[in-house]
């Protein structure tokens, strides 16, 4: 399937591992990407705090450029959750508010551009993989299953929220990444904080507040025995990875949880070389965790039956 591709600023350098691994897994997934020509920054969460019209115009320039090179029916894909949110939310607001659309187009006209609201539909990369490619097609490509690797699937906030954008997964407790990781053979651990915020730019505003937010995510993943955290957003990756040592210092903890992009884990399971997938750029070395990947699926222990002395609780009858 063909997509228009909006990489966003992070994927150029800071999250180049995400870009490289996305490009690497594209062929086996049957996805082709055509980058938006001369795209600009989406404004992240900063532009909207400065000037409303400029924020919409900045995003709309990308939408207008994308529309010019996107045949009807083709979707745009953004791997960064913040870019995805800005592009899709802006389009939704322009569609809903014709007077806003008129003003944005007045601004775009100064640069010889025009955008018809609703023309370009944007999906996050995870949604495209899950909905357009499908779990079965992903599973069919697995050559080296991630047996025994305990993965905490981390969604962050912007891919599943806000609600009005008809997000593809649950706002509070999404599961699509869980199923995808299981298709790769990984041992997916329960991760109650999976859709809580990493703090975004808070590391720059108040590091104290930010470290608290990052700490509770790392602690939660560690409590549930995760070897790695799988992420779908460059900001989440940066916060949990680059600030993990600071969290350890601040809270006296000793977390060593590698934060990997879901595309990197897909590439590994597809049998690709780690160097092609951008491994080695992470702050917390992923090698020790990845050495855990076994050749055989681990034996699953049966859920323990409560002892006869315990308080009576409802139990599911055993099948055999």
């Amino acid at each position, binding site marked *: 399937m063909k997509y228009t591709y909006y990489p966003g600023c992070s994927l150029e350098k800071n999250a180049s591992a995400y870009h490289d691994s996305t490009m690497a897994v594209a062929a086996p997934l049957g996805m082709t990407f055509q980058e938006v020509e001369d795209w600009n920054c989406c404004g992240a969460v900063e532009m909207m705090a400065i000037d409303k019209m400029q924020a919409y115009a900045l995003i709309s320039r990308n939408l207008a450029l994308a529309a010019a090179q996107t045949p009807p029916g083709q979707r745009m894909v953004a791997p960064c959750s913040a870019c995805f949110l800005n592009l899709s939310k802006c389009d939704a607001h322009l569609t809903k508010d014709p007077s806003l659309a008129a003003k944005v187009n007045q601004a775009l006209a100064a640069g010889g*551009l025009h955008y018809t609201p609703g023309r370009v539909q944007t999906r996050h990369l995870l949604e495209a993989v899950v909905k357009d490619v499908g779990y079965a097609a992903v599973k069919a490509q697995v050559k080296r299953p991630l047996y025994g690797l305990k993965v905490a699937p981390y969604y962050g*906030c912007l891919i599943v929220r806000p609600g009005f954008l008809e997000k593809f997964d649950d706002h509070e407790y999404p599961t699509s990444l869980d199923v995808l990781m299981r298709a790769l053979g990984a041992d997916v651990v329960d991760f109650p904080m999976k859709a809580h915020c990493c703090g975004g730019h808070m590391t720059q505003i108040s590091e104290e507040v930010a470290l608290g937010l990052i700490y509770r995510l790392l602690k939660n993943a560690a409590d549930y025995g995760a070897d790695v955290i799988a992420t779908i957003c460059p900001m989440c990756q940066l916060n949990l990875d680059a600030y993990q040592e600071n969290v350890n210092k601040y809270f006296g903890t000793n977390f060593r949880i590698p934060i990997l992009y879901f595309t990197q884990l897909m590439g590994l399971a597809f049998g690709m070389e780690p160097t092609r997938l951008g491994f080695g750029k992470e702050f917390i070395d992923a090698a020790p965790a990845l050495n855990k990947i076994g050749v055989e699926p681990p034996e699953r222990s049966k859920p323990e039956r409560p002892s006869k002395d315990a308080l009576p609780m409802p139990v599911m009858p055993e099948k055999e």
Partner: protein
Amino acid sequence: MTITAFPTEAVARAPRTFMQEVIEDTPGGNPRLEMCIQCGTCGGSCPSGPDMDYSPRRIFAMIEAGMREEVLRANTFWYCVSCYLCMVRCPQEVRITDIMYTLKRKAIREGYYRDSSASDAPDFSETFVDAVMKYGRSFELGLATRYHLRHHPLDAIKLAAGMGLNMLRRGRMDLTPRRINNLDQLHAIMDKAKEISQAERAQIGGGA
């Protein structure tokens, strides 16, 4: 049918309240601020809620009470991490996150942010936006150095030696900014957008 608390004829005659200003300055349709029932689900859901001067619920009550200065001096919206958890949980479907952005813009325009305990935050946004305006793309090294040298010069040295160096060593930070090709086009669009913003504010009025 959307229920609003303001009958339109009365609004046309009455002086505009702070609440109306906030509502009108929030894009994307009615933010449903007047529908708030003060249940507190927002504050209870907020990841940075405990560090805020006032919870979102309290801020909304203060807006309704017309406490303009107290609201705009608060750190509440600067500590908003824009995660939308309150928004999906709000039983009245108040567009809380969008209202936080409106308060950020108002606090900057009217200068109240200087009294807030998060007074560095707008400068981070402004420094980020400056780079985007100049190059069309964000520039992390430029942003980090300029912002931290200005606000935490001692930390800046520590940061440069620690985080910055580690980022460079891992090939995760550019030394020079990346530029888009058609910068003239971007600037023309941004200038026009600013002009429209200013005209809109002149029309709406209200403080700035």
